[in-house]
């Protein structure tokens, strides 16, 4: 019990230092169930996260998780949530970036800071449609690449999906065989030569092309 109190105090110190460094960058700070949550302004969030990672007094070197929360109340912001941890200081901190659920969902990637963010950001893109600017390989991860029904964890997405079961089955059976390999894989080696001419042309131009 004693230890967790110290850890919470340490997190409070980190929040205070963050507020001193990025005064306008910290929109809000809350203590929920003993866990510190800071809301970061989208503009300076990347800089704040980078500072938290490398500053010798903070050392949040471990990215526990990235996820996203959309509330049932449409007035509330959609939040991209970063669970940060300092392994050496044994301190946890939760940072959030609020986005307008109606507007374009886009934040900067943190894959250059934490390699572990690569798949986590892909999952948030897949499930919520948040674009991570600068992510090198922002493909769908749990759903297949040509999945067109939307982003399943959005509140506007019904539990059974947008389409009827018959339509979903038809789409699955009609899936383009090209989708069995990603375009990146098709660019490897011998498989490239077997490709239809138009796919070869697409690969030669721009890889995957613009995001859907």
């Amino acid at each position, binding site marked *: 019990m004693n230890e*967790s109190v110290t*850890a919470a105090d340490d997190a409070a110190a980190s929040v205070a230092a963050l507020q001193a460094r990025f005064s306008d960058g910290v929109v809000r700070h809350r203590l929920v169930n003993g*866990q510190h949550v800071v809301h970061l302004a989208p503009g300076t969030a990347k800089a704040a996260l980078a500072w938290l990672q490398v500053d010798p007094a903070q050392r949040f070197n471990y990215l526990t998780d990235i996820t996203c929360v959309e509330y049932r109340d449409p007035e509330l912001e959609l939040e991209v949530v970063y669970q940060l941890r300092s392994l050496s200081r044994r301190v946890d901190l939760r940072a959030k970036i609020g986005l307008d659920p109606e507007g374009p969902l886009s934040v900067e990637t943190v894959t250059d800071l934490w390699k572990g963010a690569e798949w986590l950001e892909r999952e948030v893109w897949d499930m919520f449609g948040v674009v991570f600017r600068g992510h090198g390989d922002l493909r769908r991860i749990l759903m297949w690449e040509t999945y067109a029904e939307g982003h399943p964890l959005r509140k506007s997405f019904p539990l059974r999906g947008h389409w009827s079961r018959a339509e979903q089955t038809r789409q699955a059976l009609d899936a383009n065989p090209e989708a069995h390999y990603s375009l990146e894989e098709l660019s*490897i080696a011998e498989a490239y030569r077997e490709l239809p001419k138009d796919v070869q042309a697409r690969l030669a131009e721009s890889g995957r092309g613009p995001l859907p």
Partner: protein
Amino acid sequence: MTPRTIEMQLSTPTLDASGQVRTVPLGIARRPSESVHDDFGADHMLVNIGPQHPATHGVLRLVVELEGETVKRVIPHIGYLHSGFEKLGEYRHYNQIIPLTDRTDYLAPMANNVAFAMAAEALMGIEITERCRLLRVIACEMSRIISHLVWAGTTGIDLGAFTPFLWMFEERERIYNLQESWTGARLTTSVSRVGGMMADTPEGWEEGLRDFTRTFPKVLREVDTMFTRNAIWCGRTQDVGVISAEEAINYSLSGPMLRASGVDYDVRKDRPYLGYDEFDFDVPVGEHGDIYDRYRVRLEEMFQSVRILEQALDRLEPGPINVSDPRVILPPKSQAMSEMEAMIFHFKQVMEGITPPAGEAYVGVENPKGELGYYLVSDGTAKPVRWRIRPPSFLNLAALPKLCEGAMLSDVIAINASVDIVMGEIDR
């Protein structure tokens, strides 16, 4: 009777009509313009492994780019077992989510059940009873043992050792029998509830577990004898799939994968929950970050789990397993039928479900595969706004392309096995 002679027509006559030796060109399907040795050129080869392949430990698909036999790149594809648990959880009451947690990491279902109950309790600020706490510790450590047994057994098979697999599955069967007699199910245990446990252990159950802790280390030592100094095992695992401590942290690895690289972080020690700080146990830490160290870490963790189980059994005393909190646990039937207040609580719980206050909580526990985190967000209704699973093997698997850099094709199988993945949890 004269012996019979049967003349047989060989399907491929060795001589053709003109008396020349007939050969079957191996590259018969090759286009005429290509020479026989085309395959050995500088071209990279694309090899697809899985999703239906026993060595990928589930429906994992790996696309491997090879140059000769050296791996240039590994591209994992996941999602074949995606069930939408997180979405489903938003339409379920808190106790209804517990059966879903069985099906995520299905090799350690009881540990998931406990973790979810802890997350919901953190949301509501509930302190569980002493007996419940110890039973949960026992559930977690039993799960750790069976999960590591499956890992060591299947990895042994991948590398050509079949016998230890049978020994370990025999031991695993004993824990499954204990699980069955406690929960009624071998795999889908659903053993915890918010604020307590589904049921107390049946009579004589503790003796069964004690018997297990007495005899199990003997089998583990036999496994140790078979593997730890085995030349084939060492040759296949040492210095293969190496990741340094800094990289392991940067890749967000957790559990044995992180500790094998020399990072001394175990949630049980560093963020004690369920009173793990009162138990006397050691956390094994590797130094090379290769497959061999991961094996050593997991093997030692099983010995330590036995120690924890023994201590928990020593402390286990009769007592209530559920908190007496009418928000989460139904009042006794006799009270519900005789007292107005108890009946109201009963009605509210059955009709509305458990209703935590608006808020959020992240609870991370040390699962066999690494740190399992449940992040619950509530808006004050009986169903969570968001139930996020932080699956340890999802993040551990994400480092596979890094681990396989420059390895041989056969090492990919060994490295993939060493990550200890379970697709139910990765795909959710």
